[in-house]
């Protein structure tokens, strides 16, 4: 059995911005420092460091090597990197902490979407033989998914707009959000399509940003944090890549990851979901069978701020924040990778 006494004890994130002044390292340095300060740790005390980022976002191979600066890698550190959202870097660190010979870990995720045109970039993430040549961008793929939901009678364009309204309203209380405010469903539905049936409000903003999280185990977590956010379970599952091979209205890998993370369907005070496009929130709610009364995406979620490669780890930080400060006792964070919810991670956290 995996250890269940590993907890989030510190976190920090940058505000999500359409175009951040600093480069990725400059975003990360103060963020990592703030997370370590919250945890009361000196960087030299960190047992293991793991980062998540994407070379292609930065526009240069080995881009992550520069991010080592943020970890302060001197003297040498025990460190790894995943070409994935920072949530998977947290997973690797959680695995490493299972060994018991170290009791703290630093995790961070970062990405700047501003230097490139996402519509030109992300088609290169698709199967290079059959899909990439079509040049289908993430918004077009998400529109196919939205259309499937509507055809099945599982959602309407009004449902999508309502997700956006709730997200923007919730984001009013989130100092890191990029898109916030009061919006009217009728007004949103009067807007033109970006890709039928999706309108601008159904899309995430283009964001630059970074997030850092500090983990600690057992007594060390207790000593460093009055109320650690204990990770009761974490798991991730991938699905096939070809959209034509999947039912885009479902997310069976999310269901499976939640089950393997030990989520029993019981009450949740908070859930932070990587619903990058508004229609995905309903898919994830059904996949997780979120109980009534769960506060979903109180931060505003990815529709309010979407620093790609940090978005998933931000979800974990947002849930942990609410547990650590006592607003929540039990919460679930979800991260996603690839297009159309191909790869999903679920992290279940509790205050005791």
């Amino acid at each position: 059995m995996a250890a269940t006494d590993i907890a989030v004890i510190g976190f920090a994130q940058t505000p999500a911005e359409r175009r951040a002044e600093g480069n990725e390292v400059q975003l990360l340095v103060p963020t990592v420092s703030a997370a370590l300060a919250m945890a009361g740790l000196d960087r030299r005390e960190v047992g293991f460091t793991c980062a998540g980022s994407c070379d292609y976002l930065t526009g240069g191979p080995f881009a992550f090597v520069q991010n080592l600066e943020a970890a302060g890698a001197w003297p040498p550190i025990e460190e790894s990197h995943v070409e994935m959202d920072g949530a998977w870097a947290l997973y690797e660190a959680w695995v490493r902490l299972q060994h018991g010979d170290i009791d703290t870990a630093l995790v961070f995720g970062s990405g700047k979407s501003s230097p490139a045109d996402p519509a030109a970039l992300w088609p290169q993430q698709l199967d290079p033989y059959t899909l990439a040549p079509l040049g289908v961008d993430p918004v077009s793929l998400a529109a196919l998914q939205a259309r499937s939901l509507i055809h099945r009678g599982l959602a309407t364009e009004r449902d999508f707009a309502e997700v956006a309204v709730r997200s923007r309203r919730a984001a009013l209380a989130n100092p890191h959000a990029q898109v916030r405010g009061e919006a009217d469903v009728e007004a949103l539905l009067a807007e033109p399509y970006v890709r039928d049936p999706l309108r601008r409000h159904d899309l995430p903003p283009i964001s630059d940003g970074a997030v850092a999280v500090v983990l600690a185990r057992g007594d060390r977590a207790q000593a460093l944090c009055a109320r650690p956010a204990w990770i009761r379970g974490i798991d991730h599952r991938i699905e096939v890549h070809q959209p034509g091979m999947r039912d885009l209205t479902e997310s069976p890998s999310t269901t499976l990851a939640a089950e393997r993370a030990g989520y029993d369907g019981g009450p949740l005070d908070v859930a932070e979901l990587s619903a990058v496009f508004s229609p995905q929130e309903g898919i994830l709610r059904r996949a997780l069978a979120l109980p009534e009364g769960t506060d979903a995406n109180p931060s505003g979620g990815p529709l309010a701020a979407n620093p790609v490669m940090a978005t998933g780890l931000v979800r974990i930080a947002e849930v942990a924040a609410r547990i650590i400060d006592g607003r929540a006792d039990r919460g679930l964070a979800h991260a996603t990778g690839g297009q159309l919810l191909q790869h999903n991670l679920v992290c279940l956290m509790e205050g005791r």
Partner: protein
Amino acid sequence: MSSGERCAVVGIGQTHHRKRRDDVSIPGLVREAALRALDDAEMTFADVDALVIGKAPDAFEGIIQPELFLADALGAAGKPMLRVHTAGSVGGSTFIVGAHLVQSRIHQRVLAISWEKQSEGNAQWGLAGGRSRGIGAGGAFAPWIRAYIERSGAPEYIGWQVAVKDRLNALRNPYAHLQLADISIDRVRESPMLWDPLRFLESCPSSDGACAVVLTDEAGGRRAARPPAWVEATSVRSELGMFPGRDPVRPQAGVECAHDVYRQAGIGDPRREIDVAEIYVPFSWYEPMWLEGHDIAGPGEGWRMVDDGITEMGGAFPVNPSGGVLSSNPIGASGMLRFAEAALQVRGLAGEHQIDGARTALAQAYGGAAQYFAMGVLRSEPR
């Protein structure tokens, strides 16, 4: 990191590495290694609990996170899949992340795969960070190699000797990319100078290839069809690539990584207690440099081990009997190949390049500006 479940390598597969594998797609290349590893373990994709995929920069093939589309070809649906990227050391790091999944008792059977299909793109461009004025990996390492030569007083022919030895070893390895039957000191010396003091034949090739390993727990290792290799130690270390006072010839991260695996494996005298080593030597001079940089040889003694033939197949401390990175370099896979070849040696399954009686093997990979290290010790019997 020996505190958890024991981990055994029970399946190993690799492709026939070539300059251009245009007989296969990327999924075809990766499956070639994966299926060989599963066959070796007498398993199928259905037996795999989780996958770990490693490769060097996505720009080498021009696909963002290609493991996402490879999920279909690797039977990964419904399973966890991690993608590791730690520069040149990535194949080693990928092996280690896979071992951690077993040692932590999270999974019982893990398939770790690393690959590169360099013919799909331009590795020199990629190594230059996709920018102009690229000097190539050799250009980055040449000044440090020169510094090693100055510091140790090594004669210039040491590099040529390593280049010949590894290519002769490769003739015994049917998977090796370079099969240079006519290799000789004269040929290396007369090959064009690329990055002084590195000549063409002292440099690694650019290869298409993949490597895969099946990792299991102790029970899985005990009941394996063929002898397992036991993962006795693993360690990673990273340091900044450039700052005043850094010693890039003998990076501290490499010293600490080596000492960590020796400690975990209970090795007091690595030169005596290790039977064979598979070390990441993309340029000939890195053999003596790592022998010293990992405290297998004392200062200035690494090149003497080469000169005395100690690192040859028949020597007392054979290095890279597979032919090493100098003979096959699918970059993302090159680090895992070191771990796989070390494991083959202690399993007694290395064929023509088997070192008789190998029981303890060292595996090492490095990357970036000689700043990322991934090392392991494999044994025929668990301690």
